């Protein structure tokens, strides 16, 4: 990882300007401004229906915004499709696990490596014995603590392991920045604790944008937090400042607190 250590003010790695998305009469993203510095773990919190998933879908490229721009490493990536963004080093994990069930864990990660290793019109060499694919794939599995399950079929892994594998697949593409969409969703307390440890290790070398419901995890991990309510960012700052922010407390204690609406 290269950080611009010398420069006075670090250029943000990800910059979002005036991002707006409407679904009919509902504004899901309302003029969103966001900057994530290199090496930062930036968390987005907000009540259900605040537009967190819509935001990450626009950053990942699955959803086109109605207005606004997204910059990644000084490239305007607004018009780029998902695979082009991922080629630039912006990887994304999915909230709803979407893996290859009849492949082994290692095969899944190796596919992600292969996606970034040039074209695949190679018909002869055994891909399962290709160190160019297997070595980075094993390394990514090890980083999320799944090396012991490398040869297990995905359909036999637990839900928590699926989430770990999702992360390994995102890591396997050697990204500079990770977009994590609720990596703790559906995890038990013990699994959550392990996930926090893992993310804390990952953030050493990576810039991360984290969307998460688990407040303990967010406050334990984040360098900065932005609060999204009704498609608007109402506050942005260090965890302590966010905890003390009056507007945030109202949003959470007031109408936003009821989950699952």
């Amino acid at each position: 990882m290269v950080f611009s250590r010398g420069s006075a003010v670090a250029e943000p790695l990800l910059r979002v300007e005036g991002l707006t998305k409407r679904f009919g009469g509902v504004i899901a993203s309302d003029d969103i401004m966001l900057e994530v510095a290199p090496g930062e773990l930036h968390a987005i919190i907000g009540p259900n229906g605040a537009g967190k998933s819509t935001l990450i879908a626009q950053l990942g490229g699955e959803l086109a915004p109605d207005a606004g721009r997204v910059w990644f490493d000084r490239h305007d990536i607004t018009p780029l499709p998902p695979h082009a963004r991922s080629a630039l080093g912006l990887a994304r994990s999915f909230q709803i696990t979407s893996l290859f069930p009849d492949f082994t864990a290692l095969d899944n990660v190796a596919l992600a490596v292969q996606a970034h290793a040039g074209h695949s019109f190679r018909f002869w060499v055994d891909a399962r014995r290709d160190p160019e694919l297997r070595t980075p794939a094993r390394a990514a599995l090890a980083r999320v603590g799944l090396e012991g399950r490398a040869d297990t079929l995905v359909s036999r892994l637990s839900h928590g392991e699926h989430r770990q594998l999702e992360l390994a697949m995102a890591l396997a593409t050697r990204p500079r920045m990770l977009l994590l969409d609720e990596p703790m969703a559906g995890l038990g307390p013990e699994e959550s604790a392990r996930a926090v440890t893992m993310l804390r290790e990952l953030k050493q070398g990576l810039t991360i944008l984290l969307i998460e419901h688990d407040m303990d995890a967010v406050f334990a991990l984040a360098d900065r937090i932005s609060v999204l309510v009704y498609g608007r960012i109402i506050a942005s700052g260090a965890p302590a400042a966010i905890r003390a922010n009056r507007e945030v407390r109202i949003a959470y204690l007031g109408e936003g607190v009821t989950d699952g609406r």
Partner: protein
Amino acid sequence: MTAWLTPRNAAAAGVLALIALLPVYCALTGNYFLMSLFTRILILAMAAVSLNLIMGFGGMVSFGHAAYLGIGGYVMGILAKEGIGAGLIQWPLALAVSGLFALGVGALSLRTRGVYFIMITLAFTQMIYYVAIGLDRYGGDDGLTIYRRSSFGDTIDLSNRMQFYYLCLGLLLAVVYLVWRIVNSRFGMVIQGARSNDRRMRAIGFPTFRYRLVCFVISGAICGLAGVLLANHTAFISPAIMHWTRSGDLIVMAVLGGMGSVIGPVIGAVAFLVLEEGLSRLTEYWPIILGPMILLVVLYARGGIDGFLAGLRRG
């Protein structure tokens, strides 16, 4: 427990030995019918292997694969009738035309999924079936007798039954090896990934359509080769070779033998055609027996015969 002597390998080695030594037995006893039957089995096994490349590994259930048998056969038959007997012209041309047809069919049909894909591949095959019926110069509905088999100078004589048999066997083994390499290559990983979760494949950066299309073309070309061999074997070609029931037979062979492996369709072709031949001698109502047998395999041995044999070890 990576012992080589598993029931599956033992069965495969046994069948292979049987197939390799069959011509010797036939020459000794003069039973050339058996050799002719097994030549046919080898050729249709090749077609089933080609179908399984797209169906078993790529998840593309083509219900029209007999079209490529027919195209390969007709290219060979038409050239022979027009006086071009050289195999080095007939065979590459047959492969090229089959591949091109697959390119056209694939480019249109691969945009659809599931039942629609099955129906479109069937429709294209029906189309080419009726085109063949319309070929008055080449026998139309009655078919075309091929008076001279493909000639390869002095290297190999296809009229010699034993030489032809071993040629078919050699080509089948070559095709199985080729498909095995393809399936395990990077290309094969993309094809299987697209079967497993196409949306995710596209999300992580694979333009899956072009990979699936190339796979479809490879499969069509291999099946075209089987068509050339079939035309050489029967010395006759007619639209019946492309009848939709033939496409169905190929699917049954792959399912019966096991879609999960490259060798499965070979086992399926042997089992299906030997049973068909054997049962049809017992009774003219043989489909009544064969049908339920296939049903049982599909219901109780998900991986086909090959999957069943592979499972014995763990059992």
